[in-house]
């Protein structure tokens, strides 16, 4: 099986939610594993959750099915990893926050504002030479917005990386036993 590198052109996009113990060094273990197994990630975000003992890592990556399975198994071997779910896109709410600084003066500011209105995003800073836009949405919407704004000149861009959650009343962390230890 030619598994490696795990990420190849044309690989399918996957979003993984990884519940980990909220302990020092956990991110280093997870990130190190990705690097070691030649797993290119598009975005990675890590945050506290509704439970103090659990943190949640959301990873998006373009990856083939077989190496993905291997990576999930390897992740499961890390003792601080409690649960991993490969989220089903049809049953998932996925959002990303971006801040975009666009070059805009009086001659084209109204055009940019028209795009802002169309996409239902917000302006958070105005300057005679620029506009800073805050946008949230799924990746497709963000990409479309960026495609339109590119034309005016993007000065600076920052994306938070995707965060995602399954639809419905259940939580991923249900039945997951965390740890009362906060040290290493």
């Amino acid at each position, binding site marked *: 099986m030619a598994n490696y590198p795990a990420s190849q052109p044309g690989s399918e996009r996957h979003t993984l939610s990884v519940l980990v113990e*909220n302990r020092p060094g956990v991110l280093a273990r997870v990130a190190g594993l990705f690097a070691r197994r030649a797993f290119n990630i598009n975005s990675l975000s890590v945050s*506290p959750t509704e439970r103090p003992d659990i943190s949640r890592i959301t990873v998006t990556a373009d990856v083939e099915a077989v190496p993905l399975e291997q990576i999930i198994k390897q992740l499961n071997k890390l003792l601080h990893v409690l649960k991993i779910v490969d989220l089903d896109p049809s049953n998932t709410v996925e959002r990303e926050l971006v801040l975009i600084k666009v070059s805009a003066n009086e001659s084209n500011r109204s055009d940019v504002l028209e795009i802002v209105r169309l996409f239902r995003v917000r302006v958070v800073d105005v300057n005679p030479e620029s506009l800073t836009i805050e946008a949230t949405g799924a990746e497709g919407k963000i990409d479309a917005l960026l495609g339109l704004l590119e034309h005016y000149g993007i000065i600076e861009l920052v994306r938070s990386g995707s965060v995602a959650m399954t639809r419905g009343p259940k939580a991923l962390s249900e039945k997951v036993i965390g740890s009362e230890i906060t040290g290493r």
Partner: protein
Amino acid sequence: MATPTPLQAFSGVPKAPAAEKQSIVDGEKMTGAQALVRSLEDLGVKDVFGIPGGAILPVYNAINEHTKFRFVLTRHEQAAGHAAEGYAVATGKVGVCIVTSGPGATNVVTAIADANMDSIPMVVITGQVGVGAIGTDAFQEADIVGITYPVAKHSYLVTNAQDVPRVLAEAYYIAGSGRPGPVVVDLTKTAQNGQMYYSWPQRMILPGYNPTTKAHGHVLSDAAKLFSQSYRPVLYVGGGAVRANAGKQVKELADLTGAPIVTTLPARGIVPDSDPKVLGMLGMHGGIAATGAVQRSDLLVAIGARFSDRVTGRLDSFAPAARVIHIDIDPAEIGKNRQPDVPIVGDVAEVLNDLIPEIKRQQAIHSKPNLKPWWAQIDEWREKYPTTYDEPQDAPVDGSLSPQWVVEQLSKQADPETIWVAGVGQHQMWASQLIDFEHPHSWISSGGLGTMGFGLPAAIGAKVGSQREFNGRKPVWLIDGDGSFQMTSEELATALLDHTPIKIAIINNSVYGMVRQWQTLFFNHHYSATSLADGENRDDIVDVPDFVKLAEAYDCVGMRAFTKDEAVEAIKKANEINDRPVLIDFRVWKDAMVWPMVPAGASNDEVAYRPGVRPLLSPAAQAKAAASNTGESVAAADAA
């Protein structure tokens, strides 16, 4: 919703409030260092290896004449690690070593990586600078937890004395359970000097660690069904079966189904070689019968094996017609290199215990498949291509000893209870091919990582284990190469002073033999940097070192053998000496090669019994191979 907590995932060290109240006040008051020694005693640890140093001094201060475990002082931290490995394999227990911070910790990394590759249970305790000094580039500071992320099963940084017994209990349990492996416990000076209240037993808190040991679902009946439908089955047994102590079950399965047993390097001896179903080792230097049986099988039963590249050769032509049952305790090994038809996750011994009655049930309904033609084919291979060294090209041309003959003599003259240890290289392959293994846990060798220098310290560890578990009854023979031995030869001091009278056979060909073999076959005889000049058998070249003098410098017995008579006599003497280490310097032929051989990256079908003899190829291809009867034909296959 609960308020979000601060995210600790990024920080290396927990930021504990400075004036944290000691919440636990039950138990005996002591320092963290004393608690570490007490925890090891309460865990039942009987032997510990290591070297002291600045950042671990409080722990060594807590080791005294009342301590319940034996402490073995090595001369290099890498050796402490390998000795713990050798001890663990010989006894089946968790090996423990204690070393200092910084260079002490980095020196032991090789042993940690080796234990990780070969799934050897080991707890490595390293010293660390005080919590306040972490991250300041303090003297002898190294982030050993960070360094060992990729090569350890798990690791701890202990910053609080109160955590010591719990962490030790967890580390010991993690190392020995599931797929065994090395666990690093990095003990800060703060934790060693801090006061705590000791209590035992400790409650372990491991929510993310639940190894599966029993098979689930219908996989057992699926597997049994495959047995009833297969006419060319093979049991491919790996080190996992040794770790699970499953020798009895493997033999029972083979007897029940009639399937032959082939093993990987670490599983040699899992079923005694005297059993006619044992075909020996397969793979790069495996026997023709073993490799051939796997290549032609229609059912491959991998038992605690991981389809390593040294076993499979080119993966897409490995056992091409076989359906695969893969039994392993590590789910990540299933489907990593070969997609199995029946995956079974669980402890090998337990799974086989459950599988055997299931097969018996199936055999009662359907009859047993007829394996006679299969065994006829296997026996033909065994008869035509035995694992010997009596082909014309195997005979030394310079009057020196044949290395294979030396290894065989060692086996013939040895106590049947002997524990065999090897370094890494040609001698290791000859040892695994030619020694008559009759007991599991009697073969200790670095497989996955291939660590030269593993032999001597591992032999010391094995001897300590033999003294502990078997009253010293099992002798330990180390078969080492002159190159491999020199990587850790300082441990002769440990062997003498810690009273581990091991026997050392140096298969001295004066070169890095395995590398030289590849240079002969694949690099046009360009012997770049492989000459060691430590056994040239010439008057104008002084041997450096003189191994006999080296042994004597360490107050060990040293002997040398140039001829067969000298060799037989020296082995006899060595077997009689039991009060100190003995070393024999066997002067062997440097152009001896390890056969059979599959060139790296080639298909196992290309296996060469001797140059130009490819028994597993089609007759037409065999004739072609014979026509180009040179090493270069092997090289051509390697390039292809």
